[in-house]
């Protein structure tokens, strides 16, 4: 069985059909990016998988425990970093993992800090650590680095990639950032249209212009490659 499997999923808000008969899957140990323009319904797909939205029709399965990282860190302001990471812990083993996870995301020095004392990137790393406390097999990520500045985002993407590989996680990441999808994902699903459907499926190493064209850009060569410009520094 796949880590994530979605078959014929449909969702409408009133008259507006967000997506209908959507099917996709994420294999074991695979990192799949769901790429699409803002407002195309990709977040709704993820919310359905996380149990936060109820699909109108269709079937899906997420294997085992799943962790979720939202677009915003969504930390509990009254808890320090340790308390936030430990929030989801239920058993002594899970609680024992907290320190190790804080170290994993490189925040050992900030364990006692309150969320208001953290930068956006640090807060999102806390959220990532929190999502790992129950030792999930699947990670659901909703534009987790969209609110982080470009340099920091690059670091976080590398860190995420390393964590997913080291722990043999399967992950579905929702993003509107072509370069993020190209860097992170083993496979890219391009979502678009109204109601949204999967337009193209691209493998790792796909041509950037091809992805942009699939997204609907008529002039892909005009979209600046921020990652390339950062790497060349």
């Amino acid at each position, binding site marked *: 069985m796949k880590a994530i499997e979605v078959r014929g999923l449909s969702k409408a808000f009133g008259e507006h059909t967000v997506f209908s008969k959507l099917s996709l899957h994420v294999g074991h140990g695979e990192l799949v990016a769901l790429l699409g323009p803002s407002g195309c319904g990709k977040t709704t797909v993820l919310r359905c998988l*996380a*149990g*936060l939205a109820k699909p109108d029709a269709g079937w899906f399965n997420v294997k085992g425990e799943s962790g*979720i990282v*939202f677009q*915003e860190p*969504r930390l*509990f*302001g*009254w808890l320090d970093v340790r308390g936030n990471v430990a*929030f*989801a812990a239920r058993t002594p083993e899970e609680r024992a993992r907290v320190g190790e996870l804080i170290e994993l995301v490189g925040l050992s020095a900030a364990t006692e800090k*309150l*969320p*208001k004392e953290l930068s956006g990137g640090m807060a999102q790393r806390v959220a990532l650590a929190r999502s790992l406390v*129950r030792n999930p097999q699947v990670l659901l990520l909703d534009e987790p680095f969209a609110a982080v500045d470009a340099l920091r985002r690059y670091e976080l993407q590398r860190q995420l990639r390393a964590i997913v590989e080291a722990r043999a996680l399967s992950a579905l990441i929702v993003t509107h950032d072509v370069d993020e999808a190209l860097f992170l994902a083993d496979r890219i699903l391009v979502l678009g249209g109204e109601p949204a459907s999967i337009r193209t499926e691209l493998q790792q190493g796909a041509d950037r212009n091809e992805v942009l064209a699939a997204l609907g850009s008529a002039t892909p060569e005009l979209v600046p490659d921020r990652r390339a410009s950062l790497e060349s520094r």
Partner: protein
Amino acid sequence: MRKFWLGLLVPLALLAFWWAITAFGIVKTYQLASPVQVARELVALFADGTLAGDLSASILRVICGFAIGCALACAIGVVVGLSRTAERIIDPTLQAIRAVPSLAWVPLILLWLGIGEEAKITLVAIGAFFPVYINFVAGIHNVDRKLLEVADVFGLSPVQRARRVVLPAASPGLLVGMRIGFTQAWLFLVAAELIASTKGLGYLLMQGQQITRPDQILVAILLLALCGKITESAMRAIEHRSLRWTDTLRTAP
């Protein structure tokens, strides 16, 4: 410390003004006693033990009434804040009761409970109840839905969700309500004591008026101001300590 002294500027100026208008005979002393007379009266009332009796009676009533009102407000506030159904059942009635001006309760409470301590404590409790209730419910309603989703994603039970997310997130509202509730408790105390009591600061006020002793009235007013200020500052300090985590202007360094 310098900020503290700044707060004393206006009271000192007022004191000087007060002294001046009484010392130069601009206002007659049977209408407004001079600061010296008031100080003398304060010492006299303190020396013969009446003041200690009045002060302790009032403080005890405020503390008991506030504790009862606050406890009830927390209990009902949690239910109303968390349950839409409970809100529809309970809230309209409470809002109607809240619209009644404080003094209107006095005759009814006296009729029901007599002129004993119970009546005064009940009135104080009514006064403390509403600010706590309203601010607590508002605090619960203002909890960020996004945080609740985190609780849902982790599969927290309704009780855990309330205890671990809703209540801590609503604590700023609760603490503001408690601070306002304490101030309101003093207000209702005076209303109760003015009408039916044989001791307390409100009684001191009323007696001062009956025997035409402006100095005694002013002693009572000053003590009420002092008590109100002390409780308000204490509540503010508690609020500041427990809300250090909030990222607002109030807790800015």
